[in-house]
């Protein structure tokens, strides 16, 4: 019995009012769904579909309305719903973990406790109001045709050296997130800046090779696969394997690899809070985590052929320190510095 997506509407076509990019509905075939669970998430519908279909199969009385949003509009929407009369979603899932921490800190979430949530590592939950449901690595991508096996940068130091050599074949061929346009890119860069001193060097290197700053994961992956970029830095690894592509190499940096846990919260005042908790428990159950792993949302060391030492693993913790990433001044200073170095050598 396969659940089916009832409708996929591209939000961009639907007009200026809704900020969501796409909408889908999930229900069990033949089920008599009488309750609609509204999910607002930054995750692509296609990636989340298998786990949601499995969930509605288990709970035929539920129908899921899945809305795909950008992380910044989703944050703005959730904040507005928290303080204003606007309708609230039942579940909010975002890769903008710092934004989710900020929402919880502003008392926009409702608490829930179960054996499953309590089994989560402390770095993956906060206040019993925010839970990390996935584990996804920030990886380096490269095009196997453009980068020789000897030059493949397995660490940031190797990437740094490669950029310092200023070889012409990498000029304008290295891509990373534009931290001003991408919330996730900002978070990764911000965590990098705290993690190691290599960050300053990397910025300088990006500037030297006139790296490309772009907005979106899909665009970067496609660019590397097609050869427009030779190397892409700090790409969310979970998006890479969802569709196998030619000529695409993936590196888990061996000096350290950042791991992101997509955060889920149940907004305060959610109409279907109990059903939302049901979904949360399902996502955290072995079956739910298994399906997420198949969708490449759960990095599993025994699954991957990559030999990433445990000491190189850096989880981005779901805790109040992420609030610094939301601070206005800190953000301004960080973005200015990024601008100053990233665009230093060239006119923007």
């Amino acid at each position, binding site marked *: 019995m396969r659940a089916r997506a009832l409708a996929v509407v591209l939000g961009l076509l639907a007009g200026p009012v809704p900020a969501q990019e796409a909408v889908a509905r999930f229900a069990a075939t033949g089920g008599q769904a009488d309750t609609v669970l509204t999910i607002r998430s930054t995750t692509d519908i296609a990636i989340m579909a298998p786990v949601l279909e499995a969930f509605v199969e288990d709970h035929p009385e539920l129908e899921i309305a899945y809305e795909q949003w950008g992380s910044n509009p989703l944050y703005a929407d959730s904040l507005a719903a928290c303080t204003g009369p606007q309708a609230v979603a039942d579940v909010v899932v975002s890769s903008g973990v710092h934004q989710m921490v900020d929402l919880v800190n502003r008392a926009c979430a409702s608490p829930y406790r179960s054996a499953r949530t309590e089994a989560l590592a402390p770095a993956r939950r906060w206040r*019993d109001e925010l839970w990390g449901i996935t584990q996804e690595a920030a990886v380096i991508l490269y095009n196997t045709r453009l980068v020789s096996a000897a030059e493949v940068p397995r660490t940031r130091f190797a990437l740094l050296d490669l950029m310092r050599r200023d070889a012409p074949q990498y000029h304008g061929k290295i891509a990373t997130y534009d931290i001003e346009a991408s919330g996730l890119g900002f978070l990764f860069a911000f965590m990098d800046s705290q993690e190691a001193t290599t960050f300053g060097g990397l910025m300088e290197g990006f500037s030297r090779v006139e790296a490309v700053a772009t907005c979106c994961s899909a665009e970067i992956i496609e660019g590397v696969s097609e050869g427009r970029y030779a190397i892409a830095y700090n790409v969310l690894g979970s998006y890479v394997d969802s569709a196998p592509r030619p000529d695409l190499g993936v590196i888990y940096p061996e000096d350290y690899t950042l791991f992101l846990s997509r955060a889920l919260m149940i907004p305060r005042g959610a109409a279907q809070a109990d059903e939302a908790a049901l979904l949360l428990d399902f996502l955290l159950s072995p079956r739910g985590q298994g399906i997420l792993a198949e969708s490449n949302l759960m990095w599993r060391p025994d699954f991957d052929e990559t030999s990433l030492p445990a000491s190189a693993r850096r989880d981005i913790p779901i805790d109040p*320190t992420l609030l610094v990433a939301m601070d206005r001044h800190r953000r*301004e200073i960080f973005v200015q510095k990024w601008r100053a170095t990233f665009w230093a050598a060239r006119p923007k």
Partner: protein
Amino acid sequence: MARGGFETAGRGSLLARVMLGVLSLLVVGGVVVTFAAFAYGRNAARQAYDQILVGAANDIAGSVNIVAGAPLVNMPVSAFGLLALASEDRITYAVRGAGGALLTGHADAPAAAGEVGPAPVFFDAPLHGDPARFVTVVRRFSERDFSGSVHVTVGQTLRARNEMALGLTRGAVLVMSGIGLVLILGAFLVIRSAMRPLDRMARELSARDPYDLTPMPADGPAEVAVMVGSMNRFMGRLDRQVGAMKHLISDTAHQLRTPVAAIRAQAELALEDDPEHLPQRLDRLVKRTRSLGNLLDQMLARALVIHRADNAPPEPVDLRDVALQVLEGRDHEVLAPEAEVELVIGDRAIMVLGDEISLCEAVKNLLANALRHGQSPVRLGVSRAGDTAEIWVEDAGNGPPPEVLDRIGGRFERSAASKGNSAGLGLSIVRAVAEAFGGRVTLGAGPAGQGFRVTLVLPRAGAVGVRDAG
């Protein structure tokens, strides 16, 4: 059966009452300590987390720089790392410049009321509906392009504080409950072991023959030993009295037999004999009867003396008073109207601890013996010799023959009794009185080597004190 049940109930209730007392003390103490521990825990948590709060605020204040004439906060992650030590608490912060304008942070973070000096100002206010603790610190700038102060306010909800306070309280209560249990157990064991001598005593007493008045072993704690001692003294007295009573009865029976038999014989003779012998018979009968009366008097006196010696508490008595009282009683004039009695007393009081009535009775007997059996003149005297006091009766005769002297003073001085007099019994009264007050009786020649003197020697009252003082 009923008695045994009563005893068990009594013992059980004592243990239960003491345990109840201990338990209620512990409960009251426990409640007091719990409140104290909670107050202490809350205070400790407040101090600890206030330090964290002010540390974070100072950290933020320290990262304010003046850039292009305006304060710019390079918000330190370490400040939030500090605050995240209270991992489950919400945080708010605001950095405000001149006029309270928000530089960075949360616009809805409250500001400290009033002027903030160099010392951090703490205050309580709600944060998104939850109670929270805030601190405001000030950093003043005197730069070329910026002069003024920047207020940093940091606030945090109270979850970690409350948990710490509760944790401390819980720990204290847990330790205290443990100690309480040990105390209860200890108290139970101590009380039970302290009561074991009582238990044993009760068992021994109930197992005891009701006529067994021998002393009980007086071991165990001091309080019990005192009790056992009193009980033993009581039983000793009881024993002596029972003994005295037995003796009295057997003596009476023994000593009355002969005179009564003699009286009966005289009476029968008077009936059967010649009427002309009748006055002679009757005269004898009267003599016998009078002698019997004396004997009875003495036996009663002796019983009285033994009873009083054991029961009347000893009191200071001047032996001269005793001598005077005996003489003034003039009983001897009945016995020997022609006899002279000389009183030999000094002008100093000679005190002993004893019972005046018993002593008088003893001296009366001595005097009566001397008047009956001795030769005039008879002297009654009181004197002191070292630590002892003496009261004596002396006559001019040679005293009884040595073989009588050996036997004299025993209870069964039958020869005396059968002869119708009662010297032996009299001396036995003297001896009983002497024993009762820690003294003795001596018989022998007078100090000048002439006459016969019977002396009642008693310890002198106050003599011990005098000796101790010396």
